């Protein structure tokens, strides 16, 4: 009965109810929409990071992270392969790479790059490069002199498909090794920096150039989901001798992204809180007015023997309806607007350089996380009920005589 009366009460003054409802709806909508937007940014960041040659889990030689030189290569990939076959979940994808810093030059220009010796078939499935070659072709498994470079590098070097590019790097004998390659493919990436930084050659070509024999610099793997990384990393750490190998998850390999994720988490919550305070003033005021308008009614109820607690409950029930209704509609609208945008995405290419500076990609697709929806609604609901307590208690405190005397 309590609920029925509450429901009827809020519609006694529909205009007021609608206005405060709109405030709650806009509040909840903005919480959900903006958090989805920010999650979209971070989600894209994580994806980019992982597909830009990080992978979910990486295995390196023990000293590689501190000193990513050719000496810190893994010389026996056979050992790794056995361990992987025995321990990894069956649908894990993994690939081996040679990854060293090198100098690329042609007749006119030279610049520092990261030389990647890749296993073309596997690499294509694991990192962004699989779908990124827009001109020419990707490498063949034992391409001796083919190289795939980024569009931005091509422009910087004033070169084109079919031209020569010389790579220089230090080989295992500490000598400068150099080798001429021919550009067979040009790739595009989310970030211009990626296009400038990475050049791909086939794994055997890189190993031969650097006198690495069968050695590799890193193994990168893609799992079914981001979350499995810790588990798999732990298994691998147990299985591989700790003195020779180091296993890293994507969170550890990209501390920047992890830090940004954390910061955004805090930011989303702060935003929830701020919106709520703005909304809270409205809720208190509206409820308060509704209570004052009905002083006589409450007085009468009390005079009839209603306990103060019942009045509190009555007022709270009314706020409860307001909040829940606002939450449902707000969440619905939030979900709809995210849905509408998640197909097309939000295009930031007009400020691409700015987006890149901030580490964001050119397209943002909002992502609704159930965690955010739940938090947003919980914040609104719990705090909403708490702030309604004030007018409710106020209402319960009127003495019948005082209240009935009120005009």
């Amino acid at each position, binding site marked *: 009965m309590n609920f029925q009366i509450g429901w009827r009460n809020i519609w006694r*003054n529909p*205009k*007021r109810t609608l*206005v*405060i409802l709109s*405030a709650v709806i*806009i*509040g909840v909508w*903005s919480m959900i929409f*903006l958090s989805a937007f920010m999650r979209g940014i971070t989600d894209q960041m994580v994806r980019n990071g992982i597909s830009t040659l990080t992978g979910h889990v990486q295995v390196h030689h023990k000293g590689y992270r*501190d*000193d*990513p*030189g050719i000496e810190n290569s893994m010389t026996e990939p056979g050992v790794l392969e056995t361990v992987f076959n025995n321990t990894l979940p069956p649908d894990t994808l993994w690939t081996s790479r040679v990854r060293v*810093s*090198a*100098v690329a030059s042609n007749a*006119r*220009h*030279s*610049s*520092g*790059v990261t030389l990647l010796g890749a296993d073309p078939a596997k690499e294509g499935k694991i990192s962004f490069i699989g779908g990124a070659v827009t001109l020419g072709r990707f490498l063949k498994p034992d391409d001796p002199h083919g190289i795939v470079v980024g569009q931005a590098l091509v422009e*910087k070097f*004033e070169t084109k498909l079919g031209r020569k590019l010389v790579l*220089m*790097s*230090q080989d295992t004998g*500490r000598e*400068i090794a150099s080798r001429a390659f021919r550009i067979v493919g040009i790739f595009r990436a989310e970030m211009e920096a990626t296009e400038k930084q990475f050049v791909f050659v086939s794994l055997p070509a890189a190993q031969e150039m650097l006198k690495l024999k069968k050695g590799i610099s890193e193994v990168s793997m893609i799992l079914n989901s981001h979350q499995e990384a810790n588990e798999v990393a732990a298994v691998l750490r147990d299985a591989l001798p700790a003195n020779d190998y180091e296993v890293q998850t994507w969170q550890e390999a990209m*501390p*920047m992204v992890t*830090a*940004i994720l*954390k*910061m955004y988490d805090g930011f989303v919550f702060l*935003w929830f809180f*701020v*919106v709520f*305070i*703005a*909304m809270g*003033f*409205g*809720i*208190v*005021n*509206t409820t*308060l*007015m509704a209570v004052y*308008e009905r002083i006589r009614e409450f007085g009468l109820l009390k005079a009839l023997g209603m306990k103060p607690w019942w009045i509190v409950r009555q007022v709270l029930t009314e706020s409860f309806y307001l909040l829940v209704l606002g939450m449902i509609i707000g969440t619905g609208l939030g979900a709809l607007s995210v849905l509408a945008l998640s197909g097309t995405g939000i295009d*930031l290419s007009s*400020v*691409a*350089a*700015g*987006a*890149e*500076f*901030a580490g964001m990609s050119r397209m943002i697709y909002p992502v609704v996380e159930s965690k955010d929806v739940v938090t947003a609604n919980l914040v609104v609901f719990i705090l909403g009920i708490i702030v309604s307590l004030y007018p409710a208690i106020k209402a319960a405190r009127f003495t019948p005589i005082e209240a009935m005397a009120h005009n």
Partner: protein
Amino acid sequence: MAWRNIWRNPRRSILTICAIAFASLLLVFMLSWQFGSYDAMINASVKISTGHIQVQTKDYQEKRDMRLVVRDPEALYSLLENTPEVASHTSRANAFSLVSSENRTYGVLVVGIDPLREANVSTLKKLIRQGSYLSPGDWDQALVGALLAKNLHVGLGDELVILGQGLDGSVAATVVKVKGIFSSGQDEFDRSTIRIPLKYFQDVYGMGSAVHEVVALGKSLKQVQEIKSKITAGIKNTNKEENLVVLDWMELIPGLIQAIQMDLVSGFIFYIILIVVVAFSILNTFLMAVFERTREFGVLLAVGTTPGRLAKLLIFESSTITILGIVFGIILGSLVTWYFQVHGILISGASELMRHYGLPERMYPQLSMLSISIGAGIVLIITILTALYPAFKSKRLRPVDAMKAI
């Protein structure tokens, strides 16, 4: 009369004032914070590397081609010295080269700097962590970034072999000693450059007296455009044969200004949403105030008050509330902001992130007329608009009906 009306229901008015004050407080603080962080970002990038203004040969910025040199920097120096807004200037030359230690070889950018003048333009001198900065007479000495030093396995006094290409295409090779190691916190900067004396650079790379960049620092960020136009004009008058361009920091680091614009726009979206939420809360108060007093208005109308005056009275009441709220908000907001402007805000846990963008760990919001007025202005406009609706509503009241209402 409006003033008295407001205090007929003090609780309601105070709550409304609080809501408005809260919104303006937040806006003052957030805008000051944004402006402060932009200043820090710009300063960090400008002071570490680019300077406010650079004079280069056309296309050098994009192509970084060694051959695009500024042949006669001396003429530019006197031009810069005659521009009163320029605080200091220096020149640099860059060449991408192979640098090897005993064990390691990396491709890095070798930058020739003028030790004395560089110290007035960039923060390099303060970034030296080990050893010492270059002195004017130094010849085959180098400053190395901390990460590069680590990667090359070199320490102070160790030798580095530089192998590159001279201006005329010949091989430029030399051996330098590490004199100092600098660390800016920005990985890219610390990993990929070494600095040698400009005179020595010009000798090794066969540059003669040419340089690649003439870098200037203005007395303040605001004067950059003025300096730019003055120097552009000066170059036109004195130096016709060389194909020089004047670039300001926004052109030198296009990502930075776009990132700032993006942050501003997204900030404004947040603020507008916040204010709309506040506005709805306020609308209710104003609307209620009118409904509640329907009878009173009926009486007022019946005794001959024109509807226009009634509306005016209501707008007056709501503006008073709004302005009170905004004034409180601005005062409190300024106080809070001012406190942090003096003490700084420690962003704990994000130091790595801040370092990446070259920002200090402690951030200082910047209180300015702009940051105070923008937020308050938006709040004022939106709330007054909100208040108009109930006021117009009141215009349509008819005395007889109104007096019948409870």
